[in-house]
């Protein structure tokens, strides 16, 4: 509680974020500025956010605080542009407040790169229950593993459901490649070693099984080719339309899908598959990162730290003001245990679900969600991700051999390690 939030340098702190509820962010920032006489300048950056920010960092632009996904944060760190959160006066306390798996995901060489913005599960398996029940099944029969899921898909098909499954195969950088990564991990595998970053894909292991299942699904014609050209909006809309029964989606989009105002047909009928027998999806999170801008005065750096502390951790009253607000208003989960395990959290989240009981299932899935540290906490993560994306499309579209794809992926990792001397 001894943190002093009052800025002293008199200079402007530049805070840039992507376009998500910018009104909320602005209000938060305004509140800070008002309360402490701060000069935080907040603006949204639209477009290809990571690339735009990377350029700003390279050019040593006026930029002090920004959003970053962990993989980007790792890159920024690799470029020497990040001031780790560990260097905050209360850095240790903050790190200890995080769930361990998340702290782990956000750390490189023991340094915590940033403070919690949100943590979500991407690829959590969601189901539109109406057609499922209509096909004569009960909720107890919902699949709990990937294999069961695929089996169910074909059963539904035989029952006359034209599009039982919308796979996570869309065209964004977090589309098809992530689908592969989380399915491999959900099946118990690993893409690369978390420490050494050695490749670990095997043909007869989870990777092989995943690709085999994909190929079968693709060849069955159940997945329209258009999925490949969806952006995220298209992907969400596709599921929202009620055409599909199952689909791996963002966990926080449960709120979207069950919101009458946003999703007509499916609203009130979307729940998620249980994570009892395996995990679903992977951690999709973002942090507030401080930059290590060259030429910035000591005093200003201090001000940056003060602001981030307030914004990304606890306020003057010891409350997680911003994090609580995100959770309540947008079902954005936090990395802080204290935030997630509070009763207010349960209350807030439950209202966004198909039924309140789903909250347990959410926590169950959430707590198990894996993080592909081996390929993400490494500077070549985006490069590999893009490569993988194209390779997987080619795998389906050009009917490549699963074995060849897996071997090439492994080789690619080796090559990247070599190139970046890891």
């Amino acid at each position, binding site marked *: 509680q001894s943190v002093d939030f009052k800025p002293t340098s008199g200079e402007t702190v530049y805070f*840039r974020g*992507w*376009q*998500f*509820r*910018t*009104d*909320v*962010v*602005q209000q938060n920032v305004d509140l800070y500025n008002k309360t402490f006489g701060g000069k935080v300048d907040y*603006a*949204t*950056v*639209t*477009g*290809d*956010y990571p690339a*735009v920010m990377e*350029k700003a960092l*390279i*050019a*040593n*632009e006026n930029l002090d605080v920004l959003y970053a996904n962990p993989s980007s944060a790792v890159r920024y760190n690799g470029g020497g542009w990040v001031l780790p959160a560990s260097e905050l006066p209360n850095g240790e306390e903050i790190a200890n407040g995080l769930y361990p798996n998340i702290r782990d995901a956000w750390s490189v060489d023991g340094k915590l790169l940033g403070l919690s913005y949100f943590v979500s599960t991407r690829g959590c398996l969601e189901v539109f229950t109406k057609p499922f029940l209509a096909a004569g099944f009960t909720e107890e029969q919902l699949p709990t593993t990937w294999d069961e899921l695929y089996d169910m898909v074909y059963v539904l098909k035989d029952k006359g459901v034209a599009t039982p499954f919308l796979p996570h195969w869309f065209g964004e950088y977090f589309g098809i490649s992530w689908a592969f990564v989380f399915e491999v991990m959900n099946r118990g595998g690993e893409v690369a070693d978390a420490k050494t970053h050695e490749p670990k894909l095997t043909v007869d292991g989870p990777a092989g099984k995943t690709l085999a299942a994909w190929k079968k699904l693709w060849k069955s014609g159940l997945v329209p080719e258009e999925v490949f050209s969806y*952006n*995220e*909006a298209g992907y*969400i*809309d*596709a599921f*929202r*339309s*009620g*055409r599909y029964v199952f689909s791996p989606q963002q966990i926080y989009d449960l709120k979207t899908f069950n919101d*009458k*105002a*946003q*999703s*007509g*047909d499916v*609203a009130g009928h979307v729940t998620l598959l249980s994570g009892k027998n395996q995990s679903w999806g992977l951690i999709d999170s973002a942090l507030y990162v401080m930059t290590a801008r060259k030429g910035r005065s000591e005093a200003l750096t201090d001000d940056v730290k003060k602001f981030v502390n307030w914004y990304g951790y606890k306020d003057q009253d010891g409350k997680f003001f911003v994090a609580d607000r995100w959770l309540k208003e947008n079902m954005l989960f936090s990395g802080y245990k204290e935030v997630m395990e509070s009763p207010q959290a349960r209350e807030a989240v439950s209202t966004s679900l198909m039924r309140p009981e789903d909250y347990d299932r959410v926590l169950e899935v959430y707590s198990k969600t894996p993080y592909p540290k081996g390929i993400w906490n490494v500077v070549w993560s985006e490069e590999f991700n893009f490569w993988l994306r194209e390779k997987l499309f080619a795998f389906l579209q050009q009917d490549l051999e699963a074995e060849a794809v897996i071997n090439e992926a492994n080789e690619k990792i080796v090559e990247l390690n070599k190139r970046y001397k890891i």
Partner: protein
Amino acid sequence: MSRRAAFWLVLAVVVAVIWTFLPMYWTVKYAFMTKTEIARFPPMLYPHAPNLASFFNIFGFDYTADNGTVYKASGQARQIILGIRNSVLVAVIVTAVTTLVVVPLAYVFARLEFPFKGKLLAAILLSVSLPPVSTLIPFYTLYVQLGLTGTLIGLIIVTLTITIPIVAWMLIGFFRNLPPVELLARVDGFSRFYVLTRIIVPMARSGILVAAVIAFLFSWNEYVYAQILVTGSNAVTLPAAMSGFLFQVPEPSQLAASLLLSLLPPFVIAFFLQKHIAEMHLA
């Protein structure tokens, strides 16, 4: 006009109008639809219950539908409003400068013979040819050093490098078709400058207006540089601001509404332009 010719003309006009509007309509109709309607499958041909929520939202107002649903104001509103202002500023300045610079330039290349003409023309062509992707990073670095990022002036400068060569190339073709009145004008004792400003320009008024509109549209629509140079600053332009509805959290309806909005100024301009094109008949 014969009956048959009239039939074909009407048919052609209908096809042209459909071709022109269908792609726009398909997205713009989203502006009047809710997310649910947009997501409906099969897609709706038209909004069954059109609402103006998005238009309120993008300007920062909540909108309460008849059924009580509240559509919350967009957080992008500030950017959109800033974007409109900046886009107008940039477009107007770029248009003015481009027209002033390009008219004499095009005239010279279209109507005069002089040594090195081909080479000079090629130099201009070269600058049209540069793909922004290839110089974006060096360019950005230069701008940071000059303190031009996040400023309107910086954006204006870079937009000029796009509009000047392109509009010049277009106007050259236009000027070549004018009758050889320079002969007359020079015998009348006018200097080259006078011939250009007082004779060629009035004669070519329509072409020049079209050129100005093109410059306007090029700058109005410029996105690649804007997204690198001015997003996240107070100099953000409308296209950059709008793209917020496309990335991260998709808002098709608000995107459509702002796209529609961005079409209005060109529409107004085009409307006044066409009168001038019709005037050209007299020449």
